[in-house]
Structures are given as structure tokens and as C-alpha cells.
């Protein structure tokens, strides 16, 4: 286990902006794509 606590994990050793910025935007892109597809197919 790499992290002593949740705040340790969120801090990412000082690289929180870069790491979470990458994963966050990737997650947003995927969520948007899936949302648009579901909306389109349910019409």
C-alpha cells in the first residue's frame, strides 16, 4: 500500500493537479461520450 491516509492519496506526493487533472478530464470525456450515446440511442 502506497498511502498512509486518504489525504496522502489525494495529494499524490504534490502532483495532485497533474495526476487528477489527467484522470479527471479522461473520466469526463468518457462520461460525456457514453452520455451522448445513450441519449442518442434512446431517442
Amino acid at each position, binding site marked *: 500500500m*502506497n498511502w498512509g491516509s486518504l489525504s496522502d492519496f489525494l495529494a*499524490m506526493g*504534490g*502532483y495532485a493537479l*497533474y*495526476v487528477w487533472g*489527467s484522470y479527471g*478530464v479522461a473520466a469526463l*470525456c468518457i462520461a460525456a461520450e457514453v452520455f451522448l450515446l445513450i441519449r442518442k440511442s434512446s431517442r
Partner: protein
Amino acid sequence: MAIDWFRFGSPQAFFPVAGKMVPWFAFLAVAFALPGLYLGFFVAPTDATQGESYRIIFIHVPAAWMSMFLYLVMAGWAGLGLVLNTRLSGMMASAIAPTGAMFTFVALWSGALWGKPTWGTWWVWDARLTSELILLFLYLGFIALKAAFADPQRADRAGAILALLGAVNVPIIYFSVQWWNTLHQGASVSLTRAPSMAATMLAAMLLMALAAWMYSIAVALARVRSIILERERDMAWVRMSAGT
């Protein structure tokens, strides 16, 4: 049992098959992503030189791989349509393009966020970064070009020519780090040498790559279904299944 694969070249036959496959590939995507993220964040050790910032690799490399691979698959479908004049091929190419563009954007974005702490800059105009940016424009150009034609068959042909010409860019991206002096590091994983990274890092990266692959298949199949419905809406089989 003999399967007549050509039967699935017809949109009508492929439509229900694609529908059955979507949930399975979506499930596989999640099934690979969860252990991939777990290994990547909780098991893979901190990098000696880059600290925790290197964990961007688990999204960056799979996204970059998919951006190149999806382009080749897209160009392959488009080329097949050009040669065989099959209706489904152009639809498959159209279905892949947005997902390819999305992964290209994610690769560029996560690359910028990785570049800042490791190189001290968000962006440099070097061979790897520039050719990957061109890839994004090729995807967007392909989508825009196809949308510009009212006649889907002409759109398919024009799109196929652009996709095939643009395919030259993919080996340029891949080999750019060998052909030119770039800031971007060389490949950590290749088919010809042992990988230069810890086993848990490699496992996490490969699991995330598989997840991206399964996700792409699920999304492309779901999208091709709506493209089929749109393009074939005047055909009897669509009208019958829609109950009109």
C-alpha cells in the same frame, strides 16, 4: 459450424449482433479498468525520479496507443469500403472516429499535464507531440469532411481517401522518438525487447490498455447502431422494427 461472415456485412444483419455485443464489451472494459486502476494507484511503487507524477502513465500511454490503433482500424474500414463498396464499412469508420479523437485529446491533455512537472513545460513543438496533434486534426477533419456531404456514399468515399492519406501519420508518430531528437522519451514497452519498467507498473498499464480497447469496441458498436438506424431509416427493415 460454418459462419457466413459476409452476411454481417449487411447493416441489417449486423445491427442486432452489435446490440448483443455492446454490454459484454462494456463489462470487460470495467473488468479490466478496476484492477488496472487498483494496481496503478495502490500497488505500483512510487517512481524513484518522477515521484507520483508518473502515475499519469496509466491513462496517457493507453490513450496514446488507442489513438493510433483506432486510426488504423478506422482507415482500414474506410479503405475496405472504398474497395468493396460495402455499406457497413463507411459506417464503422464513422463510428470509430469520435472515440479516436477523444483518446487523442486525452493523450495530448495528459501529456501536457505530465510534461509540466517533468520537462517544465506544457507543450513543445517536437516531432512526437506535433504529429499526435496532427492526428487529432485528421480525426476532426475526417468527421467534418463526412458531415459536409449530403450523400452518404460520397461522404464515405471522400472520408476514405482522407483517412488513407492520413494513415501515413501513424508510423510517423510511433517512430518519431527514434527518427528525431525529441523531448519525449522512447517506448518503454516494445515487442522486441524486455520492458524497461517494474512488473506491477507494466501490468497496470496493460490492463488499462485492454480496458481502453474494450471500451472502444463497446462505444463504436453502440455508435454504429445509431448510424445504421439513421442511414437506413427509409429501409423496410428499420420501419418494420420501429413499428411504423
